[in-house]
């Protein structure tokens, strides 16, 4: 176009575009929402996080849901319906990293307790028209269905551990999440051992650290929120509880809670139940 009055357009300084922010997505399957809410609970860190990543999919926080692909997908909850079976495959296809967060996503969660029952009984108990309910027979962890890049344990997860994993991914280092047992945290905290001192059954020796030995500090036994620690010896621990006077039923119930469907806890509970029969 002819520039009649001779004024030249201002020169735009040459500035490279800033690299796009990593895109974070948060997906929910069957769960209580407690783990994904720890993102909203990260208070001050939330403000910093909003700066570092683009939140592309987080229905709890936003009406905007952007199409993939996503750099990091946090997945909460277990797989319980045919629709979820398909949705998790789509999440995997769209995601660079899939991080399973919480006991539901990593072990099936509390609702996996139904895996020991006939699911039809469940539906009939609560619903007058069971034909309308569509559900799978089991509640299963994400890794039963797709490849998971990292599993963050806990019921609920530890907020600091979540921030560590996100930071690790953003700056390219390994996450620093311990695989040792709750006993280590308990000793570090200086809490007396509830099993030795009070004769209370405690899953601390076989449970992964992460809670800061919360229950033993309140003088109650650990009930396994963070799932099995590395190489746990549940059989020996179960025998110890029985020797202390716990009934086999009680021990089975202790193994079968929020992480009851995790391999180590499940096998130990099933074995004890078989021995009884």
């Amino acid at each position, binding site marked *: 176009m002819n520039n009649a009055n001779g004024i030249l357009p201002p020169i735009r300084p040459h500035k490279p575009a800033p690299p796009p922010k990593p895109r974070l997505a948060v997906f*929910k399957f*069957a*769960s*209580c*929402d*407690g*783990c*994904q*809410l*720890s993102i*909203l*609970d990260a*208070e*001050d860190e*939330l*403000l910093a996080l*909003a700066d570092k990543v683009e*939140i592309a999919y987080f*229905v*709890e*926080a*936003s*009406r*905007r*849901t952007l199409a993939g692909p996503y750099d990091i997908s946090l997945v909460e909850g277990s797989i*319980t*319906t045919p*629709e979820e079976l398909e949705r998790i495959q789509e999440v995997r296809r769209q995601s660079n990293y899939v991080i399973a967060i919480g006991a539901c996503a990593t072990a099936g*969660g*509390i*609702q996996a*307790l*139904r895996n020991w*029952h006939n*699911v039809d009984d*469940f*539906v009939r*108990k*609560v*619903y*007058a*028209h069971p034909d*309308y*309910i*569509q*559900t799978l027979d089991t*509640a299963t962890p994400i890794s039963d269905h797709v490849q998971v890049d990292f599993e963050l344990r806990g*019921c*609920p997860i530890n907020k600091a551990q979540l921030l560590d994993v996100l930071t690790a991914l953003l700056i390219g280092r390994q996450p620093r999440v311990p695989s040792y047992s709750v006993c280590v945290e308990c000793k570090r905290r200086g809490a007396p051992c509830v099993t030795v001192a009070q004769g209370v059954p405690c899953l601390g020796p076989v449970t992964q650290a992460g*809670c800061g030995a*919360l229950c033993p*500090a*309140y*003088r*109650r036994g650990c*009930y396994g*929120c963070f799932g099995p620690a590395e190489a746990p010896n549940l059989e020996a621990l179960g025998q110890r509880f029985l020797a202390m006077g716990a009934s086999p039923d*009680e021990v089975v*119930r202790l193994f079968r*809670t929020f992480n009851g469907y995790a391999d180590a806890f499940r096998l130990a509970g099933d074995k004890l139940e078989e021995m009884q029969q």
Partner: protein
Amino acid sequence: MTKTITIDPVTRIEGHAKISLYLDDSGHVNDARFHVTEFRGFEKFCEGRSFSEMPGITARVCGICPVSHLMASAKAGDAILGVRIPPTAKKLRQLMNWGQIVQSHALSFFHLSAPDLLLGMESDPVTRNIMGLISKYPDIARNGIRLRQFGQDVIRILGGRSVHPAWTVPGGVRDPLAAEDRDQIKRALPEAFDIVELALDLLKDAFDDNTAEIESYGNFPSLFMGLVTPEGGLEHYDGLLRVMDSEGRTVQEDLPPERFREIIGEAVEPWSYLKFPYYKPYGYEDYKGMYRVGPLARLNVCDFAGTPLADRELRQFRRLGEHGKPVTGSFHYHYARLIEILFALEKIEEVLADPDLTSDHVRSNADVNQMVGVGVSEAPRGTLFHEYHVNEDGILQKVNLIIATGQNNMAMNRTVKQIAQTYVNGGGLSEGILNRIEHGIRVFDPCLSCSTHAVGQMPLHIQLIGPNGHLVDERIRD
């Protein structure tokens, strides 16, 4: 030609849900339904567990209101033991419960609803969320986060962590409160009071911009139910059940909550898996027994709040009802929520000044003495019932949970329909309209993890019924 519009997922509420709207030939909304899509199965898998495990297990129903389930479950356990818990234990449980009212209502107001109220229902969805709020109104967003943090801190200080604390037990609580921890809460109170005052100002400013919304967002007569103190004051932990109609008549005088079965029935519809609780004496037909629970209902049924600042706000709130009648517009759940935050902060201040609060006697011990236990508390979203039947060893034979969101089910369906009929008429569906419908659901702050503790995803079965009652169209999606 009939058409179905689906909003899926419904965002910025707790859990997963979707909404279907059914349009007639001329594009007018014929009907609207609110669906929840998940299955967990608590009532069944709790059978065979010990009642003493139930606070820990049922807290996992919900990551937002775990404390409500802890309270209801521990109280059902108290009833099974047949004990009165030590006074300090009751005060500590109340303290935690008020902490939860603060955190949950702050989440609802600041994180989930404020983006609509402050940025506008029709504003760009790209920024209409907590992140958008952070960039446009950083101070307000920060304040919201701080207020929620206060409530979460109360829970964490008492129970060790803010989600699923292992703290309440049948017979009381597990650990006393140390004086230095009490003082830590006390020091954080002034800031929390400042923030809720600011939130009240923000909301009242929004009233002027939302006159049409106030009129159409679930504004209809219904019954209201909530707990009141024996004197008729606002109550969240204990008390008696009261039911009031929208004329302001008390239709159910204060009933001991363990007798809830006498007044609450549960209906089922073939098109929904979520049950429809209703007020039994009025029946289920024609929405006669429809009642609302939660902050709006609690403020409607109580005679007074019982703390100075909340009572002052309550007097203003009452002016929103016609001629001193109950407030029927669901939009005012927002206002009721903020008044309850104020009330909870005042009660926290009051109980922190109680010298008994740091006593060591916090647990009553007993064996199983009763075969049935009912525990009731006011969750942020409304009245919550846990009913347990046990054998002599305390092993659960039968479990029933009636949760707040389910009790608002009828009212939420009616709200969606009202908004859709106001805004979706012939024209296309703008993002703003979709968000209005969502906001109508959001005012109830539904807790869908709670709603779906029992039942789950169903293939959609859509029926369109013509004016003379015959089936015009039917679709089954599986």
